[in-house]
């Protein structure tokens, strides 16, 4: 009985204490720029979600240590959603009430679900390397920012790379390319672009969906063994990627003929396969594993060496850690850019952050100064172009590490632009939206 009373007292005390903490956080929010962080540290995709989240949160720490963005400190709160769309929307609803002025949904499914909500709430959605491809058109998708590249960019560059391997795009005629994809909005996103390219070059596109989470692919790879496609594109995430590479090995399909999207080209995808994945290549969202970059050395010195690292020190500089870190940097620079117009040292609103994001101008000098030399190429957005860059490289697993194996590619705007405009116009017609005019953009 005594124990029960003690436990009750402890519970009441802890509730009181946590209320005090929360109220402090609420008071602080008035002066701080709040960064909600949607993460998946548990569940089927945790192995890939963890390094992204660690990189994201790590990047915010030295910003605060150096006084914040022009004196405005950053606060952040993680919300675990397990890569489930419904839980991602719940996280959004919960965190938007804490003065969230930008979201990074880390899921194409969640992005689809939030696109309409964000418009009503006037909160920008940064979807760096994922999300809706047509949301590059900022005159229709006014709150979406697929910075650095969309899946149509990835698909376009993938075909360019395969064409180069075959000796030219004209050599693709009569070839067969299989797309093994996660059966979700993420996995389906590249299909229209690939179909367009298939029409242009005369190759056959074979579509092979894999059900979530992708642990059973034997039937898929038996079909690949039967049909012998010339190349396989892997559009997977989490355990689906390593399973696919293992099944390729088990059915004798050459890993050199496989090319993954940038979410299928990180250490967790191949580490467990080891030498069996040797020769497997994947696109990069500009960066790869960057252990020797200045920004990584800074993270080690300013965060991990001080015992403030979010995750293990060994993962700093790995592919997905870099993805999270760069995603955080894009958000921070959006806020910084907004302050240039609306007042340095002030907390920005969602609308002001949107202006900052669509006026980003990260030239090479700025990137180099921030430690991203050799990691990234310039990003310049506008009211009509919310992507800002479409540079991609290819890296290849050599059995123990990723190494770049191609020069820079850029998505072909002649292919991409008409598709983006058509899909965005269709969306605008469905939702009864008017494209933003030049005057509206200038405001």
């Amino acid at each position, binding site marked *: 009985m005594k124990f029960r009373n003690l436990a009750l007292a402890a519970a009441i005390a802890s509730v009181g204490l946590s209320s005090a903490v929360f109220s402090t956080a609420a008071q602080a929010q008035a002066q701080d720029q709040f960064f909600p962080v949607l993460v998946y540290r548990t569940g089927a995709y945790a192995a890939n979600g963890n390094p992204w989240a660690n990189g994201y949160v790590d990047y915010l720490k030295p910003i605060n240590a150096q006084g914040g963005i022009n004196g405005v400190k950053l606060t952040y709160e993680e919300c675990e959603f397990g890569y489930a769309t419904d839980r991602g929307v719940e996280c959004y609803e919960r965190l938007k009430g804490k003065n969230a002025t930008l979201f990074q949904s880390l899921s194409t499914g969640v992005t689809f679900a939030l696109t309409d909500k964000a418009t009503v709430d006037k909160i920008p959605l940064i979807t760096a390397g994922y999300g809706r491809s047509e949301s590059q058109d900022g005159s229709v998708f006014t709150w979406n920012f697929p910075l650095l590249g969309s899946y149509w960019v990835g698909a376009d560059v993938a075909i360019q790379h395969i064409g180069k391997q075959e000796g030219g795009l004209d050599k693709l005629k009569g070839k067969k390319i299989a797309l093994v994809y996660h059966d979700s909005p993420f996995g389906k996103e590249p299909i229209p672009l690939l179909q367009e390219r298939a029409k242009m070059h005369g190759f056959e596109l074979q579509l092979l969906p894999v059900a979530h989470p992708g642990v059973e692919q034997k039937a898929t790879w038996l079909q690949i063994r039967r049909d012998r496609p010339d190349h396989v594109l892997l559009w997977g995430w989490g355990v689906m990627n390593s399973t696919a590479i293992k099944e390729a090995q*088990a059915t004798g399909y050459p890993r050199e003929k496989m090319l993954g999207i940038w979410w299928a080209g990180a250490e967790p995808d191949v580490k*467990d396969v080891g030498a069996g994945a040797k020769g497997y290549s994947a696109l990069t969202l500009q960066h790869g594993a960057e252990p020797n970059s200045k920004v990584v050395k800074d993270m080690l010195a300013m965060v991990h060496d001080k015992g403030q690292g979010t995750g293990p020190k060994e993962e700093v500089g790995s592919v997905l850690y870099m993805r999270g870190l760069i995603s955080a940097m894009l958000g921070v620079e959006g806020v910084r850019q907004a302050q240039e117009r609306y007042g340095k040292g002030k907390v920005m609103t969602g609308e002001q952050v949107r202006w900052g994001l669509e006026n980003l101008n990260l030239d090479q000098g700025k990137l180099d100064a921030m430690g991203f030399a050799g990691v990234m190429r310039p990003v310049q957005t506008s009211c009509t172009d919310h992507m800002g860059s479409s540079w991609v490289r290819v890296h290849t697993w050599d059995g123990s590490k990723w190494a770049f194996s191609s020069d820079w590619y850029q998505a072909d705007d002649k292919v991409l632009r008409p598709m983006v405009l058509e899909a965005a116009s269709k969306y605008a017609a469905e939702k009864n939206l008017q494209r933003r005019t030049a005057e509206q953009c200038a405001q």
Partner: protein
Amino acid sequence: MAFFIETMLGGLMTGMLYSLVALGFVLIFKASGVFNFAQGAMVLVAALAMARFSEWSNAALGGDSLFLANVIGIVGAGAVMFVVAWAVERFVLRKLVNQEGATLLMVTLGIAYVLEGLGQTFFGSEIYSIDVGMPKDPVIMFEGLFEGGVLINKEDFIAAALAAVLVAGLTVFFQKTAIGRALRAVADDHQAAQSVGIPLNKTWVIVWCVAGLVALVAGIIWGSKMGVQFSLVTVALRALPVVILGGLTSVPGAIVGGLIIGVGEKLSEVYLGPYVGGGIEIWFAYVMALIVLLFRPQGLFGEKIINRV
């Protein structure tokens, strides 16, 4: 024809692995009347423990002896599964003697969440490897009979053979030994079993230990195939249609059900999938199980339970 045979063989070998996981469900249900939703979590914890103990001991041994590291890993994981079995009996089941089946089912859901959380807290949530020397490359057979031959996945073949040996051993254990009969008696009626001197607590620890052993073997095989990570939990979900189809109370049912589901889902994906957009193998297994339920609610081999009212 060669492709059809390859698909069939692939399905049979996968089905054997489903049988192994399904066996964990059947064992606990037969011995305690509990549908153990925690079986998938047990597979995850067993595989995590095996992978991590093996990794740590390999590092401690200077990376010289993978065999010894694996032995230590298996012993360590076995000890963890024994502790899980003892804790489940001591802190959960002992308090719930003679409770409704639905209550026990909900309890196993809770056990699953606790095991998943604790397992990842203690052993980590990254992807870990189990290297027990399984061959990864395929072998092509019957090249003289069929153009291109028939591809056999050596890893799947060995895994299926191991699973078959374990299934056979457990069948004998259940049907022919005194402990096996005691387990079945407990399943029929807790109070009646106690009244004839069968120690309920000890019996439950034994059956959860056996289910833990099955989880360990399944964890090693699946972990070696797809890496040790949270997704191993979902392997248990693949075994659900197997127990629905085979019957919850039948060890042979788990075997035959596993084989039918394994072959059925592969053939459906390959031959029906292209007409409906593909990606159908997971739900098609449930469709097959539901069709069986329509005609035989107790499953193909399950006992017909008639309650007097």
